[in-house]
């Protein structure tokens, strides 16, 4: 009888402790989502089928999405996700991965100032106003291509970043 009472008492104490700890040390948000989000390239291009990198990270964390849907992240990104989540690496599901980073360039002579691209840009990297010329802030453009489709006059082109001595990297030795 005393044994049962003692155990019940202990269970009660630990239960209360755990209950208190869960309230006291509650973690805001989902830490795994943050970790996945940190690995994603943050282009916000939506090529994975989710509206931005964080929604994709949430979908992966919930087990709704595969880890091989992010083309800008490439194989390196997929491998990093596989390592982080301890999942089996999978080949990317897209065929044409362009390795060279691109930025959007607006042909300012053709631009009619419709603001559609400004609304499409996920990182607010396009400057301009209604019926005024628009331009892309090249340093802030992530190359997501979301502004290309909405343009009614097709004046936005994706231009690969120039290859200069400051962007050049030592190649892998043969």
């Amino acid at each position, binding site marked *: 009888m005393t044994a049962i009472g003692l155990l019940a008492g202990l269970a009660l104490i630990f239960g209360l402790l755990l209950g208190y700890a869960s309230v006291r040390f509650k973690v805001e948000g989902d830490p795994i989502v943050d970790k996945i989000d940190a690995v994603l390239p943050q282009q916000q291009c939506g090529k994975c089928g989710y509206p*931005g*990198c964080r929604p994709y990270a949430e979908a992966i964390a919930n087990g709704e999405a595969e880890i091989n849907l992010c083309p800008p992240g490439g194989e390196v990104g997929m491998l990093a996700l596989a390592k982080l989540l301890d999942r089996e690496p999978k080949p990317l599901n897209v065929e044409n991965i362009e390795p060279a980073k691109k930025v959007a360039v607006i042909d300012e002579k053709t631009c009619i100032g419709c603001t559609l691209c400004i609304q499409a840009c996920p990182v607010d*990297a396009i400057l301009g106003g209604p019926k005024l010329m628009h331009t892309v802030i090249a340093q802030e453009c992530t190359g997501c291509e979301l502004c290309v489709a909405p343009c009614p006059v097709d004046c936005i082109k994706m231009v690969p970043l120039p290859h200069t*001595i*400051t962007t050049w990297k*030592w190649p892998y030795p043969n």
Partner: protein
Amino acid sequence: MKLWQFHGGLKLDGHKSLSSESQIRRANIPDFLVLPLLQHIGEPTETVVEVGDKVLKGQVIGHCRGKDCSLLMSTPIHASSSGTVVAIEDRPVPHPSGLTAPCVVIETDGEDKWIECTPVADYSTLSPTQLLYHIAKAGIVGLGGAGFPAHIKLNSKSIETLIINGAECEPYITCDDRLMREYPDDIIAGAQIIRHILGGTQRCIIAIEDNKPAAYQALLKAAAKDQDIEVVLVPTRYPTGGERQLIQVLTGQEIGRSELPAKRGIVVHNVKTTRAVYRAIQYGRPLISRIVTVTGTGVEKPQNFEVRFGTLMHSLIDQCGRNKAGIERLIMGGPMMGFALPNEEFPIIKTTNCLIVSSAEEIEEIPKPMPCIRCGACAQVCPVNLLPQQLYWHAKAKDFQKVQDYHIFDCIDCGCCAYVCPSHIPLVSYYRYAKAEIRAIEQEHKQAELAKKRHEFRIFRLQRDKKERREKLQKMKAASNASKEAAIKAALERTKAKKEQGSSNEQK
């Protein structure tokens, strides 16, 4: 003076006598000067001249992006002779990538006319900040080979030891040797100026490798006037001339890559940089030329030249006389850390210290790399105590986390490990590859962070705009409701008043 020793290193065949015995010659003024707008580590400069402009020797043609260069990691580029700007375009520049970069091309007029220079009358009356401003304006960078802007390195507080580096440890190169023999007074005067800028350092050591006795004697003689300057012979051992290796030899302190020597109260400057500082302060002359060793079996008379920046390499080789055997290979820099160039059509820039022109007979065929046999010879010679073998495995496997765990960024690219490797593995190429990839990944991470911040702000902005619009609408609705009510009330009152009036009229 007690000397220490760094781990590893190599005793190399110097090949210095090829070029060390003839006087420094002034190279001819070439017909065209090709001046790249980036010749240092840091931010590139912007042109301040246009095609067709007449320029004078020493005139600024590339200015840093900002008003005051002394605050930036950048330094101006000056015209190295007088003439006309004929083009501003991309030209091949001496860089391992073999790519082109923006250059200013000047057709010289042969007059070689200086722009007006303003020397500092008495440097001891000026504050360090004022002197740094002069040095930054003169476009001085570290002339030992790295090209780090001198005013950034000199802008250090509480420095106790100034080391003037005259070690010149790489084979073939003799430009520092000749400079020390011919202009020892300039170097001493430059060292005194630098000491003044650093707030009067306790010690000032000029270090020379013991394979240059003539340079040692010359500096000893010149330094006799100044009791505070010590001239020290250090043992000849590659890479003693490396900044951190020289510090270790002279002070016994081992400093990792993550720490700056200035944090430990030590600053190291090359002898050529020291002379450039002297000329900039004493004569107000900007940096427009440097001493370059042209050596190897491909030239008839290997020697040192005082060369204007922008002079093309082929003109310099012509002045040395070509050997009949022909040129098989051209290396800029030393044989250990330099890189091969595909042809001679590259300009001499601020970081060009040596050209090794080789004929076919000098070149040994590099055997094909064989598998690593884990002999450990590389670890024995590494001057920074790394494990080159481990670095090689992980770099080869592209495991960038592991190479960082093995401190790849402490590697100074000296090439000792590759030199001793019995399997002839190009180890340094692997390390350079890994370092470049890691830097690129870090850069991408930074950009991703920025994009994330901007995306989050955009979401916040859209929500805020929506809320504001809704509130505005509600306010407008409320306002219109109020005005409607007021109108109804007013109408009611009017009719009431009319009624009253009507009834009162009737009463009348």
